[in-house]
């Protein structure tokens, strides 16, 4: 186990992913991702599923969506609402952190 630390693995920054890559990275079926796109939860560039290109942030969104469905039984519409609210909350947290720094500084 410790021996494996010697080798340094270099990674590449993921800019866009294809449908197949997105499915593999999240461990989900393509049909399910297509449904997310139909619901407007993911917005790939390109016209047909085979040519779809997803931004890297889609990996996080698709994974969260899958957890919400698997763990809580949230449906597609509910996932869309939840993700929007999570984005909003994240932005507000960001702002609160900055304001806290300001008032304590």
């Amino acid at each position, binding site marked *: *186990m*410790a021996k*494996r*630390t*010697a*080798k*340094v*693995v*270099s*990674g*590449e*920054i*993921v800019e866009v992913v294809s449908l*197949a890559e997105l*499915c*593999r*990275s*999240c*461990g*989900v*079926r393509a049909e399910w991702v297509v449904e997310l796109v139909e619901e407007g939860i993911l917005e790939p560039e390109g016209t047909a599923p085979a040519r779809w290109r997803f931004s*890297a*942030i889609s*990996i*996080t969104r698709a*994974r*969260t969506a899958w*957890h*919400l469905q*698997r*763990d*809580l*039984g949230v449906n597609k519409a509910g996932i869309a609402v*939840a993700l929007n609210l*999570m984005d909003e909350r994240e932005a507000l947290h*960001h702002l609160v*952190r*900055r304001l806290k*720094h*300001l008032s304590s*500084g």
Partner: protein
Amino acid sequence: MDFKDYYETLGLERTATQDEVKRAYRKLARKLHPDVNKEPGAEDKFKEAGEAYEVLKDPEKRTAYDQLGANWQAGQDFQAPPDWNEGFEFSGGGYTEANEADFSDFFETLFGRARAAGASRQSSHSFHAHGQDHYAKITIDVRDAYEGATRTISLQAPEVDKAGHVTLKTRSLRVSIPKGITEGKHIRLAGQGTPGIGQGRPGDLYLEIAFHDNGQFTAEGRDIYLDLPIAPWEAAMGGKVKAPTPTGVVELKIPQNAHAGQKLRLKGRGIPGKPAGNLYAVLQITVPPAKTDDDRKLYEQMAQQMKFDPRAKLGV
């Protein structure tokens, strides 16, 4: 091993109906889900609730668990009676939704693990004989994004051996983080996921990048924000002040009559890339307290001479 009171975990009486068990779990799961609840400890509680529900939702497992008796207290040292589960077969109960790798030793002693079943369920989502992709989150310093860095990470992942058993393996990996990475971006490490089956290629490892909250710099994409405190006279008269940046200290020119919240842009001093981000110093005017009589006199003099009414716009 500690006894686990699954009823207590879900906040239920032992007489709760199956419907009540379901409702209690759903309510807790929504509250504690790690994607929803970012409080430390929420994830552990979520897993505990999942384990409790796994037992109590299944009449077979629940009956067996109830037979252990109500005399056990949560946390009490526990050993299962040798024949405790006689007459029960946990066949159809299933490990349907939860990730059984997260369950406690207590659970494992009583109900074992659906290892092979869990493994085949997971791989049913992946393609052919390709190994599964893995995912982990890694927190780095903003400075690492400027320079690139090498970080050692520890990963826990279930591994399937030839006999189909799943065990949690920890491995460490030294990862080089490319320069120019931003928050929320993913790094792909080809071939570092689950090994492939047969001729299949191994899966990839995806690392999601987050930055440490260092209290100084905040990032938005490639742009970096710095809150820069200045004195009232520096704001009024302008001048040069020192400011920290992730790549070192710079001198910044404050314009005359600068105001709080004003952003000074340092072009191209954000995270490198094409194009590179900018660094924004957001001015924050800090008022020195009047500590001595002399200080107070100075403020009095200002008050008399400047005729400044900060509330003029409020009409009071």
